[in-house]
C-alpha cells in the first residue's frame, strides 16, 4: 500500500507549489511522522541494534563483571543445544499447522458473513470478540477448560456417552501442542476474517452479476472471480499469519511454561526464559538474532513466491 501511495504524493506535490511551499510540506510530513518515528527508533531500532551487538558478548542482566566480547561462542553453544532444535521444531510445527488452517477457516467465515443483514453483523462481532480479548485472559480460561475435569473433557464425555474420557490435555506430550494450536486458531481467526472480508468487498459486484447471467455455478464464481480478486489480500494474510505464528509466546508462558518435557517450548519462549529468568542477556540476544534471520528469510521467500508474475 505505502509503496503505491508515496510516489503519487510526491508527484502531486512537485508541480503545484514553489520551493518554500514544498519545504513546508515536507516539514509538516515530518512532524506528523515524528512521534511514530521516535517510538520506532526507541523501541525497535535501538533494541535491534543492541541485540545485534549483545549477541556476540557474554552480557548478563545484573552482574558486577564487565561484559566481554566472545565472538561466535553464543552461536556455537546455541547450535549444540538440543533444546534450541526442539524449540525450532515446535515453532515450525505450530506455524505449518496454523498458517493454512487459520487462513482457510478465516476465509470460510468471511464468505459466510459477507454481504448485508443484521444477523451477519452479529456473527462478525461474535467471531471478532476473541481477538479483542487479551491473549493472557484467553489462555488462563482455556487452561481451566483443558484441565482433566474441565469443560473439554466433560463435553467429550457428554457427546460420546462416557465412551471417551479425554486426557490431561496440557500435561500430555502428544496433546499439549495441538491443544495450544486449536486455542490459538480460535483466538486469532476473527482478525483474519475481517481482513478477508475487506478483500471480498473490493471485488465489484457486477462481476458476480455477469457470471450469474452466464450461468456460472457458486464454485465457478469462487474459483474464477473471488480467488483471483483476493490476490493482494492473500499475500498480506500469508505473511502476517506466518510472522504471528512464528512469534508464539504468550500462550506458552501462561499455559505450559514450555512443558511437559519441552513439547511446547518455542524459540521466543526460550529466548525470554534465557534472558530474564536465567539472566543471560548475551545468549538470549543470540537466540533472538537467529530467530530474526529466520523470520526475515521466510518472509522474503514468501514475498518472492507470491510476487506479481504478470508484471514484466
Amino acid at each position: 500500500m505505502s509503496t503505491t501511495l508515496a510516489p503519487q504524493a510526491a508527484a502531486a506535490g512537485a508541480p503545484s507549489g514553489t520551493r518554500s511551499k514544498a519545504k513546508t510540506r515536507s516539514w509538516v510530513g515530518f512532524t506528523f511522522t515524528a512521534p511514530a518515528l521516535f517510538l520506532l527508533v526507541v523501541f525497535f531500532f535501538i533494541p535491534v541494534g543492541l541485540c545485534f551487538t549483545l549477541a556476540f558478548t557474554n552480557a548478563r542482566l545484573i552482574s558486577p563483571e564487565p561484559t566481554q566480547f566472545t565472538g561466535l561462542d553464543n552461536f556455537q553453544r546455541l547450535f549444540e543445544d538440543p533444546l534450541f532444535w526442539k524449540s525450532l521444531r515446535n515453532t515450525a510445527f505450530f506455524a505449518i499447522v496454523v498458517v493454512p488452517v487459520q487462513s482457510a477457516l478465516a476465509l470460510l467465515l468471511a464468505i459466510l458473513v459477507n454481504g448485508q443483514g443484521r444477523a451477519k453483523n452479529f456473527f462478525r462481532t461474535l467471531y471478532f470478540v476473541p481477538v479483542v480479548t487479551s491473549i493472557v485472559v484467553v489462555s488462563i480460561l482455556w487452561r481451566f477448560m483443558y484441565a482433566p475435569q474441565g469443560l473439554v473433557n466433560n463435553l467429550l464425555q457428554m457427546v460420546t456417552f462416557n465412551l471417551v474420557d479425554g486426557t490431561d490435555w496440557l500435561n500430555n506430550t502428544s496433546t499439549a501442542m495441538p491443544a495450544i494450536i486449536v486455542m490459538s486458531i480460535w483466538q486469532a481467526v476473527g482478525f483474519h476474517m475481517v481482513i478477508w472480508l475487506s478483500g471480498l468487498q473490493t471485488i465489484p459486484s457486477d462481476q458476480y452479476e455477469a457470471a450469474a447471467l452466464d450461468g456460472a455455478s457458486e464454485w465457478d464464481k469462487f474459483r474464477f472471480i473471488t480467488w483471483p480478486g483476493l490476490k493482494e489480500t492473500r499475500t498480506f494474510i500469508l505473511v502476517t499469519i506466518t510472522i504471528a505464528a512464528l512469534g508464539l509466546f504468550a500462550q506458552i508462558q501462561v499455559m505450559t511454561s514450555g512443558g511437559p518435557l519441552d513439547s511446547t517450548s518455542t524459540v521466543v519462549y526460550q529466548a525470554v526464559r534465557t534472558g530474564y529468568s536465567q539472566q543471560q542477556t548475551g545468549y538470549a540476544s543470540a537466540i533472538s538474532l537467529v530467530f530474526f534471520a529466520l523470520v526475515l528469510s521466510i518472509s522474503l521467500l514468501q514475498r518472492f513466491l507470491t510476487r506479481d508474475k504478470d508484471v514484466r
Partner: protein
Amino acid sequence: MGQHLPRSIVKAVAVAGATAMIATGCAKAGTGGGDANTLTLWTHNGGNKAELAIVKQIVKDYNGSQDQYTVDVKAFPQESYNSAVTAAATSKKLPCILDTDAPNVASWARSGFLAPLDLPQEVVDKNLDSTKGIYQEKLYSIGYYDAALAVFAHKDALEKAGVRIPTVEEPWTAAEFESALDKIKKSGDYDHAFDLGTGDSGTEWWTYGYSPFLQSFGGDLIDRDGYKTADGVLNGDAAKKWAAWFRGMVTKGYAPAKSSVDAFADFQNGKSAMVWTGIWNAGPLGEVKDGVALPPPDFGNGPKIGGGSWQWAVSSSCAKKDAAMDYLAFSLDPKYLAEFADKQSVVPATEEAAAIAGNGWEEGGSKRFFLDESAAFAELRPITPGYPYLTSTFAKAAQDIIAGGDADKILDKAVTDIDADLKANDNYGN
C-alpha cells in the same frame, strides 16, 4: 493551515516532553531522598494491606521517636518489585531502605546494590538463622519473619488408615511415609493420597517447594562447599533417588502429575488426604475440621523445609547509612515482629516475639509447630549470586522429571548447564 499546524504540534510535543521531564524529575527527587534527612523505603507488599499497614505503623512510630530523620514509604506490587529494584540500581536511584526476597540477597550484594548491615549484635543474635541474609560472612539483610512448609493432612484419613501422627521430634521415616500413602490410597476415600501442588508453573515454587525433598535425600542444587560445581550433588545417587521418589509419587498414583490451580482447595474439599503447602494456608487450615500440619518425612538426611522469606536491607548508595541502620534496629522490636506473626500467617523471627504474639504462637499454642519446625528443619536456598540461574534450571528439571522424562539425563543436563554458567561467570566470585 499548513503554516499553523506545525507550530501547534511543536507546542504539543513540547508540553508532552516537559510533562515527561517533570515526571522523571519527580521520580528522581522521590528516590534520591528529597531533602537530605528523608530516607526513602521501598517495600514489595503494595498488594498486601495487612503487612503494609504494619510497615507504615513502624515508620510512623520511628518518625515520631526522633526528629532528625523522616522515613518515607513507597509500596510496590510484588510482581514488579524485583524489576523495579534492578532498574533503579542500574540507574543508581535505589532508595535507602528496601526489602528483598532471601534468595536474591547474594546476587544483589555481589552486584553492589546492598551495603553490609551494621546492627547491634544482641539484636541480630535473637533472630532465627533463616531470617538472616549472610553473604561472604557479612550480614546484608534481616527479616521480621520466615515462612514454613508443611504436610497439611486430614487427621481422620491418617487415623482410619492406622498411620502414626508424626511430630517434629519424631517425623515419619521414608518407609513409614510410603506405607502411609499406600494405606490411604487403598482406603479409596480420596482421589489423591498426597497432592504435591504441582499446578503452580512459577519457577520459585518449584525450587522452594521441592528442593527440600532433594536435600532430605542428601542431594542439593549445587555443591555448597565453594559453590563451584553441581556435579555429583544434583546428579549423584541421592539426587537420582529423589528423582525416582518424586516421579514415583505420580506413577504409584499417590499424586496428580499436574495439580489443579489451587491444590489447597482440593484438600479442603476432601479430594486429597494430604497436601504439600505452607504456613500461608495455616488460616484456612484452622477451618478444616480434622486438619493438621505435619513435618515432612525424613528421607535419610533429616526432614527439610525451605527457609528464607522477605528481608530488609540498606542500599550501598544510601547517603545516611547510619540512620538507615538505626531505623532497622528500631523496627526489629519484638512488638513489631509479634504484630507480623499475629496479623499475617508467618513465623515470628524471634522467641521473644513468639511469646508476646499470642494467637497460638505461645509455648504449646496451635501455631507453635511452625516455629519449632523452622528452627529444626529450615534449609536456606543456596546463598550464591548465581541463584537465579540455579533456580530456573532446577525448576525445569523438576518439571521434566514429574512429567516422566529420563531422570538421569535430565539431571546430567541440568548439571552441565549449571557448570557452564558457573564457568562463564567465573564462579560468581566464589
